[in-house]
């Protein structure tokens, strides 16, 4: 008996009812490349996701249809995932006090008060 499916393409293949999964185990996966797209010339490239590919040329043509087939895009970059140097999640504590350093944000300065005071003082001169 061969596999019967509502999909005529599957039925046509005359596949065994019980698929042989042994052969699948031998297949190795391609490496991944990270894809960055650019919406407008001059904009930053933005990370959009990965593709599997054996080399950068293949990664580019596959990335085009994965990440740039519907929305505006003028340029694509691909970078081998393994080539990206990254911090360790174990070291996540290096970022811990980020939220407390309000004094590093421009909003932390009371500069508008001083500007308004200066403007008021010089208004009638």
């Amino acid at each position, binding site marked *: 008996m061969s596999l019967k499916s509502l999909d*005529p*393409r599957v039925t046509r293949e005359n596949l065994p009812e019980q698929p042989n999964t042994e052969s699948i185990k031998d297949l190795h996966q*391609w490496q991944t490349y990270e894809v960055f797209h650019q919406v407008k010339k001059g904009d930053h490239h933005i990370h959009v996701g990965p*593709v*599997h*590919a*054996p*080399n950068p*040329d*293949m990664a*580019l*043509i*596959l990335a*085009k*249809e*994965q990440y740039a*087939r519907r929305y505006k895009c003028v340029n694509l970059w691909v970078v081998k995932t393994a080539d990206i140097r990254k911090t360790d999640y174990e070291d996540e504590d290096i970022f811990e006090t980020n939220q407390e350093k309000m004094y590093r944000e421009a909003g932390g300065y009371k500069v508008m008060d001083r500007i308004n005071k200066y403007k008021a003082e010089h208004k009638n001169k």
Partner: protein
Amino acid sequence: MKELNDIQKGAVKNLIFRMADDELILGHRNSEWTALGPILEEDIAFSSMAQDKLGQAHAMYQILHKLGEADPDTIAFSRDEKDFKCCHLVEYPIGEYDFSLMRHFLFDSAEALRFEMLMSSSFEDLANVAKKFKGEIKYHIMHADTWLVQLGNANEISKARMQSSLNECFPLALGIFEPSDFEDILINESIFPGEKRLQEEWLKFISPVINSAGLVLPDINSIEPAYGGRKGYHTEYLKPLLDEMTEVYDIDPGAEW
């Protein structure tokens, strides 16, 4: 816009029917890979290009509609097999992936050149459609060339498979350029430079890619091109494809979607 007399109109229609039917049938064939492609990314890319083909066919059928033929759906789904003008290459089953990739490479290379020629056609509607799809087809060529070079140089098995599918596809691909009865009119009226010219350009275009893939182009002089499709004589594969493609449409041809 150029006013066509009846003879010229017949020539233009014949040219458009050939192109549109190729695109419709190959688009349908290539869509059979959807969900069965070799890897996810390629499955999506190949399916997307199959949709592009249907879009191109639709644009072509719309020109035919303007020239007095039925609406695109009726043309696509209601004709008999013998009224189709597609070449044999596009009718063949998808086979294994090497065959589908090789067909995609050979066909889209010819199509890219055909559209490039049509961009300067005296028949404005065709020139506009050719310009519209320029970028889309350019990507198809990038995709096809990259895969060909990749598999031609990957290992012995992939190389042998690509060579054998090239040998199988080549006579079929020559059928793309089966001359019509209207070649002289199309050439003289600057509508299209003719199938013979296109075939010459195509051979020049594909040869370097085939070389980079380490493959050998069969000797064109020792090959019988697969002619007949342009005149309505098709392979045994077209009828079952049309039956499957129109199965839902035939239940209620007038249905509003």
